[in-house]
């Protein structure tokens, strides 16, 4: 992690609550992390882990039933929660942008693609229509859309899924943001197209120094794009560290469970070990460590003590009180695969 310059994004003790018929849902419950400038952080978890809500809280686009109840979100030093709505809005585009999972619903179906890309620069950067259109063409070329002059005037439905995703990336880049939040951008794409988009994202980050927060449930995908990864479970962070370290050498039983239960292309295991039980209720989560009801290594203190992330040697952190047991299990796996 880059300790020289300040991180572009600092999230401190974020809490998001959702009002629902069943009670208050604690969707994000005390999440803190940093994203270094130019770095890419992966946020990994299954459905209900809170990863998408975290992204939306940062951008400030939570659904109406949800709200940030406490915490700090510092973008380039400025706490977004202290700003008025209109001020935050001015940051969306020039400072931070988002790309979504379903390009068809994220793009305006009745607006021409070129103008959708050009809209940001016109509004936020004050470019004239002509200059904005030029910029849009340039962006389209940069994200690899062939024949941009002709495609400028096309509508989203005339594009394939991969192309639409490229359009969304172009829109996100249009005002030169410092950070792009990605919410499962390749989940809906074919493997070969996903490959193209992931390479594009990595290349763009390298070239322009844009930071990324990449949310996904797909472990190898996160390894493709990000240097660091944070694993979420039940609205909380359970592990954080350099991506390959965390995935290949985990220090939390949930991460271990994820890795063991997902069929991996490279390591064909004899049998997959699913994680027993079901995801925790976010209305009344388990006491202490939220994973303890499903954890094979659980002890008494897991039920009673709070489990924030604690640093480990080597720049990693884990929320597990007994991470040595995960370590042993990993080594045992390696000894007899």
């Amino acid at each position: 992690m880059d300790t020289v310059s300040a991180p572009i994004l600092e999230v401190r003790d974020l809490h998001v609550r959702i009002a629902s018929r069943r009670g208050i849902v604690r969707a994000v419950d005390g999440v803190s992390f940093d994203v270094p400038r130019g770095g890419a952080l992966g946020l990994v978890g299954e459905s209900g882990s809170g990863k998408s809500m975290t992204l939306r809280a940062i951008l400030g686009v939570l659904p109406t039933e949800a709200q940030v109840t406490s915490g700090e979100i510092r973008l380039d030093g400025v706490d977004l929660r202290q700003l008025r709505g209109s001020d935050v809005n001015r940051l969306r585009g020039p400072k931070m942008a988002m790309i979504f999972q379903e390009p068809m619903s994220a793009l305006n179906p009745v607006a021409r693609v070129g103008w959708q890309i050009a809209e940001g620069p016109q509004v936020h950067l004050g470019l004239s229509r002509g200059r904005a259109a030029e910029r849009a063409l340039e962006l389209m070329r940069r994200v690899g859309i062939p024949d941009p002059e002709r495609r400028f005037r096309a509508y989203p439905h005339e594009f394939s899924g991969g192309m639409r995703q490229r359009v969304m990336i172009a829109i996100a880049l249009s005002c030169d943001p410092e950070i792009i939040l990605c919410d499962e951008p390749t989940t809906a794409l074919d493997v070969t197209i996903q490959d193209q988009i992931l390479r594009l994202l990595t290349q763009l980050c390298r070239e322009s120094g844009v930071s990324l927060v990449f949310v996904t449930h797909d472990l190898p995908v996160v390894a493709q794009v990000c240097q660091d990864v944070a694993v979420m479970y039940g609205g909380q962070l359970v592990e954080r560290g350099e991506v390959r370290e965390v995935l290949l050498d985990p220090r939390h039983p949930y991460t271990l469970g994820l890795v063991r239960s997902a069929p991996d292309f490279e390591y064909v295991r004899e049998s997959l070990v699913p994680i027993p039980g079901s995801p925790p209720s976010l209305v009344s989560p388990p006491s202490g460590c939220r994973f303890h009801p499903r954890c094979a290594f659980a002890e008494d203190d897991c039920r009673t003590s709070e489990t924030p992330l604690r640093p480990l040697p080597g720049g990693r952190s884990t929320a597990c009180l007994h991470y040595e047991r995960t370590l042993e299990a990993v080594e045992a796996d390696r000894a007899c695969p």
Partner: protein
Amino acid sequence: MSAIEIPPVPPGPEPASEPVLVVRAEGRAASRWYRQPALVAGLAILAVVVGLALAAPLLTPYNPITQNLNESLLGPSKDHLLGTDQLGRDTFTRLLYGLRLDLRIGFIAVLLPFVLGIVLGSLAGYFGGWADTTIMRLVDIVLAFPFYVLLIALVFVLGPGERSIYLAITVVGWVAYARIIRGEILVAKRQDYVTAARSGGLSNVRIMRRHLLPNVISQGYIYAMSDIVQVILAIVTLGYLGLGIPPPTADLGSMINDGQNFLSTHWQLTTIPGLVVVVVGLGLSLTGDGLADLLRPGQ
């Protein structure tokens, strides 16, 4: 039974793994009906109206048909709550019996197009092809005529009487149900569970009856709620035009017509039946809205 290595599943159904954001649509309409003000008001009105209609013989000693020319055109009094009409018949009595008749015809007349429309709509939606084309062209033909024009023409041709009303309203009314159900079925039949049913070798009839219809019929119910109002109005209109149940049977529409001539002197003869029609319509409308809100797949 062979032992299979499957991780233990907690007994009984697990809670849905998607936490609360996705609030699933519940079809159990009975859950909160009493909390809908429209529904409660509507049901209250209907309860009164239907109560009156059912209790007609108990509420009045008179016969709605018996004429008594000596007592014609009397004003409201102790003996005659709403006075008498030009043939000496007690207005209140005729009102109650007319209400009774019109409600009965109305409810039956809604049922027939409902059934016919749903059957034809299901066939059109499920089978497609020439069945769909034929049925939809019939729909177009019926829709080409304004509702009342066709209704009146049919009743005229078929002659007055209860049966003609049923026939005419059915011929004109089935199309709305057919379209609605056809549309729903076109969508529903693409669902995997229908494909699964076909894969299971179930017959088409069975699939339509047990798998598709239960899932789409609520839209039919919702429409029926508004249709009832329209049908009752149609019956009253036919009565008004003299095309309804032939006299001397008491019927709200014909009462309105008969009483017109005495509007300046005995306004209650024509106005009260009219108001009753309005109240009935209101009750049905409110009930329909309330039920529609309940039955509609929630957010």
